[in-house]
């Protein structure tokens, strides 16, 4: 109960600070953010866009972990957990793509320009879209769980490359690309202490939110399964 209030206050604070705090060339007051050349006012999206991309990576990782667990123990509850994680993963992946495209419209001039980052997230959406197609095409519960677990493990092998490696080693428009002179790798971004603090608070808040949503997701899936099986028995 306490952590829910904490989560609410944390993300409300991140929203207020991330949106309303002004960006100035030379920050003096504690609530002012530094101007990052090439990003300007658009830099504020970092508090919302990066956490969604981070959560999609976390969700796909949980999906794989519970797929491996299912293959080892053959417990259908683990399959429900991996399914709920993949659902959230694809939702956050779409959110990252859409917020990124809106940002690109104002930073680069067009919604979509096949930047390495955009291409890689598009490939990721296709790979995990195929996971859902595979799942929905199999009737038998055990067979579906086994096949989708195996596919999830193979699919996750691509995630580190598409999210963390490929967009960094190729030159492109996205901050953090190989030829980026402004920002460089995301962590030693030209943020000041306050901006970094709010960025990491945002990451923490979104991660807690993810685990809450995930637990609600899999608990409802497990309950649905139980109720279905009971009604078949009766």
């Amino acid at each position: 109960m306490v952590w829910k209030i904490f989560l609410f206050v944390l993300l409300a604070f991140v929203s207020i600070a991330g949106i309303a705090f002004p960006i100035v060339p030379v920050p003096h007051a504690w609530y002012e953010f530094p101007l990052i050349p090439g990003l300007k006012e658009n830099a504020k999206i970092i508090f919302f866009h990066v956490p969604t991309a981070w959560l999609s990576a976390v969700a796909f990782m949980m999906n794989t972990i519970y797929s491996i667990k299912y293959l080892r123990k053959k417990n259908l509850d683990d399959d429900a957990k991996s399914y709920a994680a993949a659902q959230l993963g694809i939702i956050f992946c779409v959110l990252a793509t859409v917020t990124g495209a809106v940002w690109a419209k104002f930073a680069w001039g067009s919604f979509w320009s096949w930047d390495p980052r955009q291409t890689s997230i598009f490939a990721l959406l296709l790979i995990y879209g195929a996971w859902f197609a595979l799942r929905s095409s199999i009737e038998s519960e055990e067979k579906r769980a086994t096949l989708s677990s195996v596919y999830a493990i193979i699919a996750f092998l691509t995630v580190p490359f598409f999210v963390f490696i490929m967009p960094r080693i190729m030159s492109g428009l996205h901050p953090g690309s190989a030829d980026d002179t402004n920002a460089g790798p995301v962590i030693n971004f030209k943020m000041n202490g306050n901006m970094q603090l709010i960025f990491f608070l945002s990451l923490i808040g979104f991660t807690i939110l993810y685990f809450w949503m995930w637990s609600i997701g899999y608990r409802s899936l497990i309950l649905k399964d139980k109720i279905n099986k009971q009604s078949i028995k009766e």
Partner: protein
Amino acid sequence: MQGLYQLLDKNAIYIVMIIVLIVWAGIFLYLYNLDKRIRTVEKEMNGDKNAK
């Protein structure tokens, strides 16, 4: 009318902030209620098991 338009124009970022806060409060309340309802159903199901 002119005054209202100017007010909205000058403070657009705060209006965005307020809308984001309203959306977040809505998502939070939805999740909170869902969590509570799932817990009730879980208790019911597990209670049945103990009765058998």
